[in-house]
């Protein structure tokens, strides 16, 4: 933290710097109004809404089936998670308790692959934010393989519309399991390679350790969830704490930030939690892939989604944190109201608290470590 000079002595003014919406490192069309004193930042105001697509209002005029692809488009880097989260919430609204276990297995497997792919982007882009370009291309290279797997399964590479309320769009291709295991064998050593290139790099540690420290209480007060919260040393993961789907069947740990290179909750911790989470995802995948049961993935698909009057709130752990769907049904085939709790939105709100007083370069670092997706923030 830098002490800002007493302006009465030198008679200097603060300068307002407008970062974005067109800026290489604001992760999309985010605009940051930064009040600076030289290099030191005294206040940051995120201005959002440049990617607002009226998702929630649209949903009031769409049938439940039609909302599924819209939900995918909220978090375009983890579309499978959003589809899964939405499907779970509609199933809760319909009162579907039990799904065929093949459906649940496939959903979890794809969700964990999606978590790896999203974290790959996050750590690559974080490297880009602190100036290292090569890790980004390496992580994208490996993400490409996951996307190829998804393409085999769903036919799409980014926005899948594969997980439907009550089931899946279609079954897995027969070669999927082998190819997925092949990928895991290839991918596990790659994590060590990222660590050698970026995680343990001296300059990288200098840039990210002790920068933008988010203490546990600040994180909780701002409603920060996901890897950013766990980076602050809080072992909160919905997959463990409120297990949905079949996560309770698998053995995995919840990695938390331990302040290995600096303070607990610094940017390095938030970054490293994502690296560790990829390893945990691999663990889950290794357990789930060999034991996919047989069955019909569409047997539980409702013919027509017309829930009874009522309202539900369901939570889901995406790659960015706790996404919540509040749906109120008026007994029609469209929801009366749909509200989405966006994890990246809440995570972004803490930006001013933890990066004011640092330098412009650190604002970029902190923003990168929070791993925001503007599609989800603006909805």
């Amino acid at each position: 933290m830098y002490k800002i000079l007493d302006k009465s002595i030198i008679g200097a003014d603060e300068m307002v710097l407008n970062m974005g919406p067109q800026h290489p490192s604001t992760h999309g069309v985010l605009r940051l109004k930064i009040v600076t004193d030289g290099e030191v930042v005294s206040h940051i105001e995120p201005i959002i809404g440049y990617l607002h697509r009226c998702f929630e209002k649209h949903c009031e005029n769409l049938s439940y089936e039609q909302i599924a692809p819209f939900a995918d488009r909220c978090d375009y880097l983890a579309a499978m998670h959003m589809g899964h989260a939405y499907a779970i919430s509609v199933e809760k609204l319909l009162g579907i308790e039990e799904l065929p276990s093949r459906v649940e297995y496939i959903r979890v497997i794809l969700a964990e692959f999606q978590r790896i792919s999203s974290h790959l982007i996050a750590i690559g882009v974080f490297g880009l934010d602190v100036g290292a370009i090569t890790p980004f291309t390496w992580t994208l290279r490996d993400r490409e393989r996951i996307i190829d797997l998804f393409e085999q399964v769903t036919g799409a590479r980014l926005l899948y519309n594969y997980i439907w309320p009550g089931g899946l769009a279609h079954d897995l291709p027969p070669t999927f399991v082998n190819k997925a295991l092949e990928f895991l064998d290839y991918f596990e050593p790659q994590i060590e390679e990222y660590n050698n290139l970026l995680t343990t790099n001296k300059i990288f540690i200098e840039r990210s350790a002790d920068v933008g420290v988010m203490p546990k209480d600040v994180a909780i007060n701002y409603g920060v969830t996901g890897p950013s919260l766990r980076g602050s040393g809080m072992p909160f993961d919905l997959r463990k704490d409120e297990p949905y789907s079949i996560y309770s069947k698998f053995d995995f740990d919840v990695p938390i930030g331990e302040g290995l290179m600096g303070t607990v909750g610094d940017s390095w911790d938030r970054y490293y939690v994502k690296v560790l989470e990829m390893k945990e995802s691999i663990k889950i995948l290794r357990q789930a892939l060999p034991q996919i049961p047989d069955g019909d993935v569409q047997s539980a698909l409702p013919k027509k989604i017309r829930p009874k009057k009522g309202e539900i709130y369901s939570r889901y752990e995406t790659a960015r944190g706790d996404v919540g769907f509040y749906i109120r049904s008026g007994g029609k085939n469209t929801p009366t109201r749909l509200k989405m709790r966006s994890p990246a939105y809440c995570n972004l709100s803490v930006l001013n608290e933890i990066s004011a007083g640092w330098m412009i370069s650190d604002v970029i670092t902190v923003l990168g470590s929070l791993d925001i997706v503007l599609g989800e923030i603006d909805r």
Partner: protein
Amino acid sequence: MTSALDYLIELLAFTGLDHSILVVLAIHIPALAIFLVMVVNATIAVYVERKVAAFMQDRLGPMEVGLFGFKGGRRFWGGIGQTIADAIKLLTKEDIVPDNADKKLMLLAPFIIFIGAFLTFIAVPFSENLVVSDFNVGIFYIIAMSSVGVIGIILAGWSSNNKWSLYGAMRAAAQIVSYEIPIGLTLLLVVIVAGSLNLGDIVQWQADNRWFIIHSPFTFVAFFIYFISVVAETNRTPFDIPEAESELVAGWMTEYSGFKWAIFFLSEYANMLIVSIVASVVFLGGWLSPLAILNIGIPESWMILDGPILGFFWVMLKALFLVFVMMWFRWTFPRLRVDQLMYLCWKVFIPFCLANLFFVSIWELISGTIFR
């Protein structure tokens, strides 16, 4: 050691013109040659940099644009005409000047930067006798001229009337001015040992004794301090904070486009070449063959590689290796922060340099009296 300029004046002496006119006439030839060196260097270096980056990043880099029938096809070294196509694109592009910019200064800035790099080449020896003008204060002249560019950078940042440019310019000014000091101090160390500011004499000293990098532990450290400092001086990663892409968009050249931007690029790569040549001449024995050091077990016929004719080859080999190391840095390291950069310079390098300077003086005194 004779210089290229002296040689040209002698060559033109048959015209019978006055000496001052001869100088003016002769000066144009090396000037053109230097310009060609800069252009060719930038063209090749950009291509190589992109290919090095592509190699390190597991991709292919430019593949499509061919040249003289050599397209590369599926081979890695395709796309050899890409930089030429890029250069033509830059030269024909619209030159955008912002409304509120200071137009005159904005036009002036690239040329100051260019002239800084251009004039430095006058004293840079490419080989024995292959130097435009053989100053007796060559090394001092190079240090002085390479700091001219920072004026252009500040002008560019200020005149663009853009906050990002201003930030970039302020950072560049602080950085370049700071890193001049360790560069000066490390070169001073060499000057103390060799007893001359003339680059030819410095290489001659190395021929008589040994290369500076292996001369003593202090000169060994000095080489690394020099090299890291020149990476900072040329604004390359990990010290590229003036043009930090992820923070300042493009730093002080944010508002530049087309031809002016091409000149910035030309100067940047020329500066890389200059500092690498200086490093190879001062620390790595310049045009001396590395085979001379390892003269054990090398056939006599190989020693033909050690001679004045191949001097250019050895200088360029050493220099281009250092240029490659700079590229290697760029695609491996993250970027330092402004205060960390200043910390490195003022609290690590400069004290080390001063201590180095002190100890090397003692070392020379002792080794001069005891061992000789």
